[in-house]
C-alpha cells in the first residue's frame, strides 16, 4: 500500500510536481472562498482562459522560463480591461467578461499556432504537471507566499467587505482598493493553478475544494481550513490515480474535484436529513 502511494513520487520531476501540487492545494481554497462569496467565478474562468495569449507571446520572445510571467501579465491585462468597461459603463459584467475573455483566448490560439514551440496546446489547456521546471516552482512559491500573506494579514477586512461593502466603507476600509487587490490575487492564483490542471480546468481547482467545504462549514475560517484539506486530498489522490492508471494528471485532478463536491453534497444532505428526523421524529397515527 505504501509503495502504491510512494511510487509516483520516485523521480525528481514527479517530486517537483508534488511540491507544486502542495503549493496549489495550500493556495486554492484561501483565494477560492473569496471568489465564491464575491461571485467572481466567471471572472476567474475568464482570467485563466486569457492567459493563453501571454504564454504564447512570452514563449516566443523570452523562451520557456518566462511563460508564467506572461500568463500573469495577460491575466492582469484582461482584469484591467474588464474593470474599465464595467466601472465606466452600465454594461452587464458577465457580458463584458464573455466578449473580452473569448477575444484573448482566441488570440492565444492564433499566437500559439504562429510561434515555433514544442509546447503542446493540450499541455497548456489541461495541465503540464510532469513538465514543471525548477523555475516554475520558484515562481509558484513566490506567488503563493504573496497571496497567502495578503489573505492572512487582511482576513478580517476581506470578511467585512465581502459581507457588507457599504458598511465596510463607512468604518474606514478602502473597499475599491481591496477589490482591485483581490482581482490581482486571483490572477496570480490562476497562474499558479495553470501548472497543475491547465488553463481550462484551473477554475475547478480554485473553486471546487472551497465550494465543497462550504457544504460542511459555518464560518469562513472553517471553510478555508476544510477546503485546504480537501484540496490536498484532491491533488495528491488525483496525481496517484493518474500515475497508476496512466491518465493525464490535470483532468484526473479536476474530475476528482467534481466527484468530491457531489459526494460532499450527498453526505451533507444525508446528515441534515438525519438531524431533522432526530429533532422531529415522525409520529405515525395510532389506529384506534
Amino acid at each position: 500500500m505504501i509503495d502504491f502511494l510512494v511510487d509516483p513520487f520516485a523521480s525528481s520531476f514527479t517530486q517537483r510536481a508534488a511540491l507544486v501540487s502542495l503549493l496549489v492545494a495550500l493556495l486554492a481554497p484561501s483565494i477560492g472562498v473569496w471568489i465564491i462569496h464575491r461571485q467572481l467565478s466567471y471572472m476567474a474562468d475568464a482570467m485563466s482562459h486569457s492567459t493563453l495569449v501571454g504564454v504564447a507571446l512570452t514563449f516566443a520572445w523570452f523562451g520557456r522560463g518566462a511563460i508564467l510571467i506572461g500568463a500573469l501579465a495577460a491575466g492582469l491585462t484582461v482584469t484591467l480591461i474588464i474593470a474599465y468597461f464595467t466601472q465606466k459603463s452600465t454594461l452587464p459584467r458577465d457580458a463584458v467578461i464573455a466578449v473580452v475573455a473569448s477575444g484573448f483566448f482566441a488570440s492565444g490560439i492564433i499566437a500559439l499556432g504562429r510561434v515555433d514551440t514544442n509546447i503542446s496546446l493540450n499541455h497548456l489547456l489541461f495541465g503540464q504537471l510532469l513538465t514543471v521546471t525548477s523555475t516554475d516552482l520558484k515562481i509558484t512559491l513566490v506567488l503563493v507566499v504573496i497571496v497567502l500573506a495578503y489573505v492572512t494579514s487582511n482576513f478580517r477586512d476581506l470578511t467585512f467587505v465581502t459581507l457588507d461593502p457599504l458598511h465596510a466603507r463607512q468604518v474606514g476600509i478602502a473597499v475599491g482598493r481591496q477589490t482591485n487587490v483581490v482581482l490581482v490575487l486571483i490572477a496570480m492564483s490562476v497562474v499558479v493553478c495553470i501548472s497543475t490542471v491547465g488553463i481550462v480546468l484551473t477554475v475547478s481547482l480554485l473553486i471546487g475544494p472551497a465550494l465543497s467545504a462550504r457544504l460542511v462549514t459555518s464560518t469562513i475560517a472553517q471553510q478555508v481550513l476544510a477546503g485546504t484539506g480537501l484540496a490536498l486530498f484532491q491533488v495528491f489522490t488525483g496525481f496517484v490515480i493518474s500515475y497508476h492508471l496512466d491518465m493525464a494528471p490535470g483532468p484526473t485532478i479536476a474530475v476528482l474535484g467534481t466527484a468530491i463536491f457531489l459526494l460532499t453534497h450527498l453526505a451533507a444532505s444525508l446528515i441534515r436529513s438525519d438531524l431533522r428526523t432526530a429533532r422531529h421524529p415522525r409520529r405515525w397515527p395510532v389506529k384506534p
Partner: protein
Amino acid sequence: MKHSSDPPSGPVLAVAHLSVSYESTRALDDISFEIGEGEVVALIGANGAGKSSLLKALAGQIRHTGDVVIGGQHCHHLDRQVIGYIPQAPSVNYSFPIRVRDVVLGGRRRFGRVGLRPDPTDVVAVESCLGQVGLADLADRPLSKLSGGQQQRVLLARALAQEASILLLDEAAAGVDERRADALIDTFDILADRGKSVLISSHNLAFVKRRFARCIGINTTLLVDGNPREVLDTDALTNLLSK
C-alpha cells in the same frame, strides 16, 4: 426616551439647508432640523419624498449641499464613522458564512484594524452590544440561520459597536408585524435612555402616531416637525404624506 416637550440637551445632529440633486432632479430642497441627545424621531413621507436620500446624505453615502453638524463638529471635518446607518436594502450578503459576533465585530473596525484574534476590549464591546439588542444568546449562531428581525438586530448591534452617536434606519419597521415593530421601538427607547439618538424612516403613519413623540415629515422640502398626534391631525396632510 426624550419627548418633544423635553428641553433639548444640545443637538446631536443639526441639519441646515440641506439639498440633494440627482442630475437635473431635485430630491431634497433646503431641509433644516435638529435632533437632541436621546431622541427617537420618525422620518415620514410618501414614496419618493426623499426619506432614503436624506438618510444617505446624512450618512455620507451621497453628495449634498448645506450643513450637517454632528456632536458640534461640521461634517466636512467629521469622520462619518460616528453615524450608524442601516439602509432600507442593506448590502449585506446574508448567505456569507459568519457568526453573529463576527458581524458585530465589524463595527469595531472603525477604531483600527481587527486582527485574526480580536482585542479583548473589542470582544467585551461586542458582547455588550449584543446584550443591548437581546441577542447575547445567539452570538455564535451563523448569521444566515437567524430570522429577518434578528438579522436586523445584528446590524443594530454592529452600529452600536461602532459607538455611533446617532443611528439612522431606513424603513427598519417595514415588512415586520406589529409586535416585532413595537419590540424594535422598545429597543430604541432603551438605547435612547443610554443617550443614543435615533432617526428612523417610516411610511406607516398610524404606527408613527402610536409610538413616536416626534416626527419630521418631508416631501422634497420639510413639511412638518413635531408631535405626530398634533402635526398629523389634518386629513389633507395625512394624505400628502402617505400617498
